[in-house]
């Protein structure tokens, strides 16, 4: 019944050009945002020598898995050279392992220690509480490079160069952002449950670990995801502290791979296979916890 009525009314309603234009613009934006990722995959699955011959094919040329196998060290160097790769032995498997070790250590330490600190700043009373917290926040303003040089000297003096300890040291105990982030959550939690537990005679650590922490799991997961991604992406610090292969993380390994081009032109298919591997963990986390990341952007701008 309503359909004919609409047909009659249509000519009177102006075509929403504005809306169509806006959708087109949004479509263009999504294309520009996503196309580079597609091209990364397309190149990673292209046969090494074919990448130089067929440059415009939208699909992988002579689709193959050998680039991934090469960067994971599953093909020996001579075979890789014959296939058109560089003569450099690249072992991203080791770098992948190192990145996981570093990021997991930082996440575990930072979450545990910052949750404790944030709870103390939000709920407990102790001398100079607000002053200490204000100093933490002030440190958010200091550019990283100011601390990087003295921290490098400190780690070097303590013999921490090319060790995992040296790479995780500055961020495993705290970052001002993590303390700030969790304190905000603790301030938002209803006090009544805690106070009831305290009146029942529970001690502060019991209240914190048994009552408060279980209520904070969502915030802790959000922070864990954010912390994991930012330590996974970190470049300058691991570059200056851990350039030896046994502790070299993925970002540093990619940088090394990029600057070593024995055959003149960069090994693009190998590089794109390496970058594909490097973003898989972030991608998985994003699939699982994308909403949390989006919500945290609404909550606070993190960087």
């Amino acid at each position: 019944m309503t359909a004919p009525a609409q047909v009659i009314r249509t000519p009177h309603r102006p075509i929403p050009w504005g809306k169509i234009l806006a959708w087109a613009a949004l479509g263009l934006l999504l294309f520009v945002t996503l196309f580079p990722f597609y091209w990364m995959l397309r190149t990673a699955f292209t046969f090494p020598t074919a990448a130089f011959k067929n440059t415009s094919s939208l699909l992988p040329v002579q689709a193959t898995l050998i680039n991934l196998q090469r960067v994971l060290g599953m093909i020996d160097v001579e075979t890789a050279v014959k296939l058109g790769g560089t003569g450099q032995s690249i072992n991203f498997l080791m770098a992948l392992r190192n990145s996981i070790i570093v990021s997991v250590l930082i996440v575990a330490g930072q979450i545990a220690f910052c949750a404790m600190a944030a709870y103390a700043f939000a709920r407990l009373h102790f001398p100079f509480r607000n002053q200490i917290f204000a100093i933490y926040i002030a440190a958010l303003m200091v550019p990283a490079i100011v601390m990087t040089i003295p921290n490098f000297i400190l780690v070097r003096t303590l013999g921490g160069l090319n060790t995992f300890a040296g790479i995780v040291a500055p961020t495993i105990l705290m970052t001002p952002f993590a303390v700030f982030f969790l304190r905000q959550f603790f301030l938002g939690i209803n006090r009544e449950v805690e106070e009831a537990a305290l009146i029942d005679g529970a001690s502060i650590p019991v209240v914190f670990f048994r009552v408060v922490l279980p209520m904070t799991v969502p915030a802790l997961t959000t922070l864990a995801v954010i912390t994991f991604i930012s330590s996974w992406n970190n470049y300058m610090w691991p570059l200056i502290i851990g350039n030896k292969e046994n502790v070299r993380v993925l970002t540093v390994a990619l940088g090394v791979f990029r600057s070593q081009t024995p055959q003149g032109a960069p090994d693009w298919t190998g590089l794109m296979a390496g970058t594909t591997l490097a973003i898989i963990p972030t991608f998985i986390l994003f699939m699982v916890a994308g909403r949390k990341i989006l919500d945290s952007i609404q909550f606070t701008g993190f960087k």
Partner: protein
Amino acid sequence: MTVQATAIPKLAAVSEPKRRWRPRETAFALLFILPSLIGFTVFYAIPAVRGVFISFTNWDLLTPAKSVGLANYAKLLQDPNFWNSLKVTVYYVLLNIPLQTVLAMVIAVMMSRLTKSIIIRAMIILPWLMPGVVVGLLWLWLLDPTIGIVNVALRAIGVGTIPFLNLPKYAMPSIAMINIWQYVGYTALLIFAGLQSIPGSVYEAASIDGASEMQMFRRVTVPLLRPVLVFVLVTSIIGSFQIFDTIAITTKGGPVNATKVLNWYIYEQAFNRFNMGYATAISMVLFLILIFISLMQMRLMRAGESDM
């Protein structure tokens, strides 16, 4: 909402009426903050202060540091490379920030009108979650003069090859473009979050009064969004001044110093030439520039609060 904006009011919110310290509570509290306090003291507070001292020495890691007074700062004023780095950094910030902020604003307004789809929002921030190293490598490949797809496409439509990262005059605009690609979605979502907090009734009132779309944007959206915009601008300006990863992977400061930004110059002085004293002095100058920007922000913030 924002790091700086919420920190200050919440500080006041926790200070309850004075009460006597309970020794047990204080003891547990100190135990709880101890790890973070150690981390902060050793890796934030002491290094920041130590940096000031190092900037007054000629330390090269090999021989013991000797105090040279203000010599590093005097040298800096005479160093054409330092001035070039400062110029190049400011040039980058000017290329990056206005375009990125305007684009982000347009995207945010567009999204708030068209769709609240979480999938679209998720896709838009994807580049921001990637390591700077990956973004640098990816664009190095896309923009390759001979076989990169962008140049292949430009040749196909008759524009011809553009040596984006290989020519001094194109290098910095290309770096700015790459970083806009990485950060514009994130910036748009911050602004989008701000837009969501403006009550719909304000727009209804404006439209009843006969305001046009353009008038509503200028008279309602922009003023109410000012605190968010100021936060976005300042954090992205501070971030821009510290650009490193993209340049370290793509141009390494070249061609002919065209992209040798302050952070890269400091890195080169400290870790390639081991001029720790001089590098630290330059980092202090960068710090002063950023303090100046933060102070400007606080003034703007206060001006922005009265709007709603």
